[in-house]
């Protein structure tokens, strides 16, 4: 293998059509079926992951909470930037998130993107969640670069309508509701699987 190609393959920027994906630093999602189809075996660290969901309350947080619970044990703050609603402490604690490390940043649309970039770049946070309503490709690229420089996981939670828009995020997952499934739209380091993954229903 050429000396130029090898590092690209190792960092997952280039991948082959067939063959096993190289193992990269990743954070398990907590959903085995999803871990199996993601190239690194979970959410890529130091990158953006996009969650596309059709409406509030379809499991967009449930998908992230196992990872956030794990990250809150790293004793670095998890920052929610301009969340659409208030996190209900009881449910977050029940999901295993250490509330001491949950920080909320109140900001308007424009400042939220700035704050997200600052948090991602600073390397002071375990994870950054934000809800950009309007973000063009250039903005997403900035965020992705910030996540790479700061080696921080960034989660973008966006409406399903933007699925057609090009994105720099390393992983894009769309939530489908009927039946509840996760469709991996993009995953850097491998081809997205053709089949959607079953999304386990909330334990009643």
């Amino acid at each position, binding site marked *: 293998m050429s000396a130029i190609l090898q590092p690209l393959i190792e960092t997952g920027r280039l991948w082959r059509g067939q063959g096993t994906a190289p193992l990269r630093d990743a954070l398990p999602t907590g959903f085995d079926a999803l871990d199996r189809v993601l190239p690194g075996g979970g959410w890529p660290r130091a990158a953006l992951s996009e969650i596309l969901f059709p409406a509030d309350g379809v499991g967009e947080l449930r998908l992230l909470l196992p990872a956030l619970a794990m990250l809150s044990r790293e004793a670095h703050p998890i920052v929610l930037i301009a969340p659409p609603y208030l996190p209900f402490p009881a449910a977050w*604690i029940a999901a295993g998130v250490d509330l*001491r490390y949950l920080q909320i940043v109140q*900001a308007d649309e424009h400042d939220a993107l700035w704050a997200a970039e600052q948090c991602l770049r600073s390397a002071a946070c375990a994870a950054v969640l934000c809800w950009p309503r309007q973000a063009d490709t250039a903005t997403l690229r900035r965020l992705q670069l910030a996540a790479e420089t700061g080696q921080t996981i960034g989660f973008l939670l966006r409406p399903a309508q933007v699925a057609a828009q090009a994105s720099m995020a390393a992983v894009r997952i769309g939530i489908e509701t009927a039946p509840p499934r996760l469709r991996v739209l993009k995953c850097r380091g491998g081809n997205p699987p053709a089949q959607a993954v079953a999304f386990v229903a909330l334990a009643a």
Partner: protein
Amino acid sequence: MQWACISFPQLALDDVLRRRADHASPLVLFEGAGSRARVMAANAAARHHGLHIGQSLTAARALCPRVNAVEHDAAAVERCHDFLAAWAYRYSSQVCRTFPQTLLLEVRASFRLFGGWAALQAELRRDLAALGFEHRIGAAPNPHAALVLASARGGCAVEDEAHLLDALGMLPVERGGLDATCAESLQRMGLRRLHQLFALPRAELGKRIGAQALLHLDRLRGAATNALAFYQPPDVFDQRIELPLNTASHESLLFPLRRLLRDFSAFLAGRDGGAQRFTLAFEHERGAPTEISVGLLAPERDPELLFAIARARLDRTRLRESVCGLRLVSDELPAFTPTRRDLFDTRPQQAVTWEALRERLRARLGEHAVHGLALHPDHRPERAWRVQGIDPPRGSGSSRGVHPARARDTNGPVSFPQRPTWLLARPIPLRERVARILAGPERIESGWWDGADMRRDYYVIETASHQRAWAFRPAGDDGPFMLQGWFA
């Protein structure tokens, strides 16, 4: 004590020269107006043409018609001297700029940090060469001796008192720092070297040369001391460069810009600070200057980085007319903290602490923009949480909210009834069509004692579009649902 003395033999000339890219063309500084204008400094190229100090400017122009004549600006030289003091402050906390064209530094205390006099001197010389100043450096155990040694024999360093007398004694009397008439009368008496003076009886010598000169000789030998006023670095950087020619091209602005930023960087290093924000003002002949404000993510002081940023900003700026001057102002100079890191920390270079990041966010978004959450022991969802102020993540402190860790300790493993992850601060009518009720009703009835009485039946609802909502109806009511949260 060990004093280093740096003297700048052509400070005024260097101040002008270092703002110009072209050093080869003849240049003189003149003082006085009209026909009384006299040359007071000339660069090497001008001296090569026979120009010298004291010549009238008319004569100088006759000898070399293409000479650049710049009027001497005493205030600019003072500013330059101030800048050098700010630069020297990084090598010593005791910097004295009282004497003209000279800086005195106490260096003994800095030896351990910089690795002795030889290393320190090399560093000083390298810096000064980069900044573009001609200099002579001397060192001695007392400031006056250092002053005399630096001006008489550049590079001479005397480490201890024993050698000081020998080194001073070798100097000719006229280089001893005595005033000119005194030195001349001593010359006429046949006293050529300082050691001859030191050998004379003190009282009799005093009668001949006066108390002032005697005191000076005592100070040279360290027998008398003099209180020096030390330099205090300012909290604001404000420097201006006047351009030799008005220019509108970005290219020709880069040289003065780079020089300005190098000075800025030297100043920042001197006060162990960085710049978070600075303003570049491009002054025009008429009208307000074009200002570029450069803000940085973290305090920085690397000249190349500052230049790259400023240049990028300049390239995007349209200058409406030609520029005659360039000014850099910065009053936001936070401490430059090389990030404290673990030995095995793999976090990247530009990492800042959460505290620093939070400050930055609060600075822009407002005092209360960043907060945490805490659980509050109340069944009513509106009151089941508290905003946790800006206590650091580790401290529970004075907050009245229950610390989650403590809640867990006292109650054992947490077992809450099913609660949504998102909470609406104020319930709103549920607009979505209810497909089915997954759980409920769960009666929450509380608060009769504090005026916020509440009796509600909560349901977990699946809407037609498969959302999971947490909604309630007033107890005993069959009316529409109110949305309180989402099981997101």
